[in-house]
């Protein structure tokens, strides 16, 4: 399936891109992150991240569908 992945903060710096189309057989965000972490060498583990799917917070186990927008949310620091 194809997913659109957006990167922010330290993940963006590490990946070197804001966003990418990903072709993957991962059926949830957990599997997808494992793949992308290996590819880009992300330092942050899943326990430090939250997941958003199509603009809403979601669980790591929520099934992904073709075309979903997936965002791994590093620890926030607004304000």
């Amino acid at each position: 399936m194809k997913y659109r992945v957006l990167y922010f903060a330290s993940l963006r710096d590490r990946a070197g891109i804001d966003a990418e189309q990903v072709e993957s057989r991962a059926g949830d965000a957990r599997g997808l992150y494992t793949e992308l972490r290996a590819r880009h060498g992300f330092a942050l583990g899943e326990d430090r991240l939250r997941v958003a799917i199509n603009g809403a917070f979601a669980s790591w186990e929520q099934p992904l569908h073709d075309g979903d927008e997936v965002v791994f949310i590093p620890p926030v620091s607004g304000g």
Partner: protein
Amino acid sequence: MFRLSETPIDAVELARELAHTRAGACVTFEGWVRDHNEGRAVLRLGYQAYVPLALAEGERILAEARAKFVVVEAACVHRVGTLEIGELAVWVGVSAAHRGAAFDACRYVIDEVKRRVPIWKNEHYADGESGWLHPDNTPVE
């Protein structure tokens, strides 16, 4: 009303929108860019946001504040982009009939915004380094 702004925040204009003849108390919070953090000299900041989720989560927080506390108006604007020392990074304003609710709601909004809204602060230090920060202002990595 929760907004992200790429241009300087006009606190005076925003405060005007809180006024109401029912309101006897108004509490505002302003977060300014400091010249130091954790002992390091800071030159400027950059804020990144995941815009659609930041807006949705910001509105959710304001709705929670209105449900928890008896307020008249509650609003928040957060800057994104590059900010210099002394610039206004975030503004929260709450009006209410009584001051207790205004203080508590204002504090709730800024605490939850800092904890939950997908906005990231990148500090640029005088020594040439920069780094993404945690909510507790320690570096991410």
